[in-house]
C-alpha cells in the first residue's frame, strides 16, 4: 500500500489559512518568548550584561523584526478570540469568515499605527 505524495496544495479558504497563520505566529511567539525569558534573566547577572543585550533589540534590523512580532502577537491573540467564539458562541461558525477579516484588519491596523513611531526610534539609533 502506498501513499502517493500529495499533488497540489489544498486550496482551503479563510478558515484554513487563518489556522496556518495562527500556528506560525504561535510558534514564532513561543520561540521569541524563550529568548525573551533568557535575556530578561540577565538582569540577575548584571545591569551591564542586560543592557548590552537589550541594546541589540534597538538596532534597525531587530527593530523591524519587532514589528513582525507585534503583528504576530496581535494576530494570534485576536484570532485566538475568534477561535474561542467559534467554539463557544452558537453563531460563531456562521460568522467565522467575517470575524477573520476583522481580526486581520485590527492586527494590520494596530501594527501600522505603531510602526512610524517605532521605526523612528530604532532608525535614529
Amino acid at each position, binding site marked *: 500500500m*502506498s501513499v502517493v505524495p500529495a*499533488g497540489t496544495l*489544498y*486550496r*482551503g479558504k479563510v478558515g484554513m489559512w487563518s489556522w496556518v497563520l495562527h500556528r506560525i505566529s504561535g510558534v514564532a511567539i513561543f520561540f521569541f518568548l524563550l529568548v525573551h525569558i533568557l535575556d530578561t534573566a540577565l538582569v540577575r547577572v548584571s545591569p551591564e550584561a542586560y543592557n548590552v543585550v537589550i541594546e541589540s533589540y534597538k538596532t534597525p534590523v531587530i527593530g523591524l523584526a519587532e514589528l513582525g512580532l507585534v503583528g504576530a502577537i496581535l494576530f494570534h491573540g485576536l484570532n485566538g478570540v475568534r477561535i474561542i467564539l467559534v*467554539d463557544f458562541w452558537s453563531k460563531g*461558525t*456562521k460568522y467565522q469568515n467575517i470575524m477573520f477579516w476583522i481580526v486581520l484588519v485590527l492586527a494590520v491596523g494596530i501594527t501600522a499605527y505603531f510602526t512610524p513611531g517605532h521605526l523612528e526610534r530604532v532608525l535614529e539609533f
Partner: protein
Amino acid sequence: MSDVKEIAEIPSFTVKLSIRRFDPEKSEEASWQEYEVEMHATDRVLDALHKIKWEQDGSLTFRRSCAHGVCGSDAVRINGRNRLACKTLIKDLDINSTITVEPIKGLPVEKDLIVDMNPFYQAYKDINPFLVANDKPEKERLQSPEDRARYDDTTKCILCAACTTSCPVFWTDGQYFGPAAIVNAHRFIFDSRDEEADVRLDILNDKEGVWRCRTTFNCTEACPRGIEVTKAIAEVKQAILRGRP
C-alpha cells in the same frame, strides 16, 4: 421517438483536464496526465471523466455510482478542493485554465483517483454509529418535531469522506477520527431516543477525538451535503464539557 434533447442549445467548448494518475502495477510514481475533451456547460466533471474513460483512455479509474450527489462515491480533489465530481458543473470552474483532478488527500491511493477508504470507515465504526435504546416499544418511539430537528443536519451525511480528507489535521498522521466520524456521532448524541450519548462523548474525548479539531472549516466548505460540520464538532465539544448532550 422521445429522444430528449438538452434544455436549450448549449454551446460546447474544449476543456483541458489534468488528472493525477497512479498505477502501482506500472510505476511507483504518480504523475499528471493531460486530456482535452469537448464538453457542454451543463456537464459535470464526472461527465468529463467518463468521456475520457470511454473515448480516450479506458484505464482511467475512479469510483462513481449515482451521478447526482447522493451515494458519496466520487469525492475527488478538483482544482485543489474536495468535491463530488458528479456535483461539480464544468461551467462553475474556470474553463480557460486546466482543471486539475486528483485523489482526496490523506488516505492511501490505490489507483488513479481511487483511495483506500478502510481507515475512514474504521473511524466511523469506532464511534458506535447506531442507535442504542433498550426500551422495547410496541410501536414507534415518540419524538417531538423539535427533538427531531435537533440532529437533522447530521443525518444527511453520505460518508463521502470529502470532509475528513480536506482536514489539515487528518493529513498530518491520519490518526484523527476526522469530521465525518464526529458528524455521525453527533447524529446519535443529539438524538433524544439514544441512550449512549455518554459512551460516544467519551470516545470522542479521546486523544484523537474532537480536541484535535483546529476549526479550519475545510470540512464545512467541502461537504457536498451542506452539513455544518464545524458547528456539529463544536456542539460535540461543548457536550463533552457539559458531560451530556
